[in-house]
C-alpha cells in the first residue's frame, strides 16, 4: 500500500500552511511575552499566548478535517498536523478560558 506523505488535496495544503502559521504565531507571541512572565498579571499573559495561536490552529484543524472527510485526504503529514493543530487549539482554548473562569 502506498502511503502518501505530503498532502494530495488543496484543503490538505491549506491546512499545512495554517499549521505553519500556528507555530510561527506561537513562537512570536512567546518571544514577546517572555519578559512579562514575572508580573502578577501572568494569567493574562497565558491568555494572550493562547489567543495568538487559537485562530490558525482552529483553521488548520478544520481544513485538515475537511480534506480527510470530503476530499479523501490520507497523507501522513495531514493526519499529523490535523491532530497536532487540534491539540494546540484545545490547549490554547483552555489557557484562554482559565484566565477568565474565575469571573464567570
Amino acid at each position, binding site marked *: 500500500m502506498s502511503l502518501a506523505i505530503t498532502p494530495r488535496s*488543496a*484543503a490538505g495544503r*491549506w491546512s499545512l500552511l*495554517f499549521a505553519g*502559521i500556528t507555530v*510561527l*504565531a506561537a513562537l*512570536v*507571541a512567546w518571544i*514577546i*511575552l517572555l*519578559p512579562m512572565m514575572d508580573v502578577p498579571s501572568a494569567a493574562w499573559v497565558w*491568555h*494572550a*499566548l493562547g*489567543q*495568538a*495561536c*487559537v*485562530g*490558525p490552529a*482552529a*483553521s488548520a*484543524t*478544520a*481544513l485538515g478535517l*475537511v480534506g480527510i*472527510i*470530503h*476530499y479523501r485526504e490520507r497523507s501522513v503529514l495531514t493526519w499529523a498536523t490535523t491532530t497536532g493543530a487540534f491539540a494546540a*487549539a484545545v490547549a490554547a*482554548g483552555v489557557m*484562554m*478560558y482559565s*484566565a*477568565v473562569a474565575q469571573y*464567570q
Partner: protein
Amino acid sequence: MAIPISSPIAHRPALPVVWLSRTAVVLFIVAMTVASIPFGEPPTGEVIWATVVVGSFVLSAATGIAAQVRKHRVARTRLGYWALAFFILSAAIMAAAQVLFTPGAQLPVTPDVFISTATYALTVSAVLFILAAFRADGETIRFLPTTPVGWWAAVFLVVGLVLAYSPWAVLTPAAGAAPALALAGIISYRDRSVLAAIALVAGPAQLALFIFTFFINLFVLHPGA
C-alpha cells in the same frame, strides 16, 4: 496568415493580476495573524502592531481591488457601485465619530455604536465587491455554499456569532477559522456563494475597523496626557 503588426502603443510594464491577487491573500493572512499576536512594550510595541495590522489590511484591500479592476478593465457594474456606496458610508460614519466625540462632549451613545455601524457597512461593501468580482468572471452566484469547505466556513461563522454572546465569549478567536476556510473555498474550490463571501470578510472587517480606531487614537492627543 496573420501579419504581425508592431503596435504604436508603448508597452506599459503592468503588475500581473495573479501577482496582485496573491499579494492580497498573503497580506490578508498576515493582517489576521498579527492582529491576534500580543504587542510588546508600549508605546513602541503598540504602534508597530497597529501599523502592521492596519497597513496589511489596507494594502490587502487595495491590491485585491486593483487585481479585479485590472482583470476586468473597470468594475463598472451595479454591484460594484453599491459596494463603493457602502464603503463611502462606512468612511462617513467613522469620520462623524471622530468629529462628534471630542473630549468633553456629552452624547447618549458611546463611540462603539458608530464603529460597529461602520463595521456593518464595511462588511456589506466588501461582500458586494466580492460578488461583483464573481459576476464579472461570469460565474453563477448562489446564496448557500456550493462546496463542503464553504459549508464549514458558514458553520464557523455561525459558531463565532453564537460564541461571542455566550459565557464562553473568550473563545471567539477560534472562529477565526471561518475566514481561512472561506479563503480555501473561494480560491481552491471555486465556491461562488454569498455565505462564503460573508464568512471571509465579516470577522476581519470588524477586527480591522476596531484596530483602525485604536491606531488613530494612538496619535490623537488626549486631555491630561
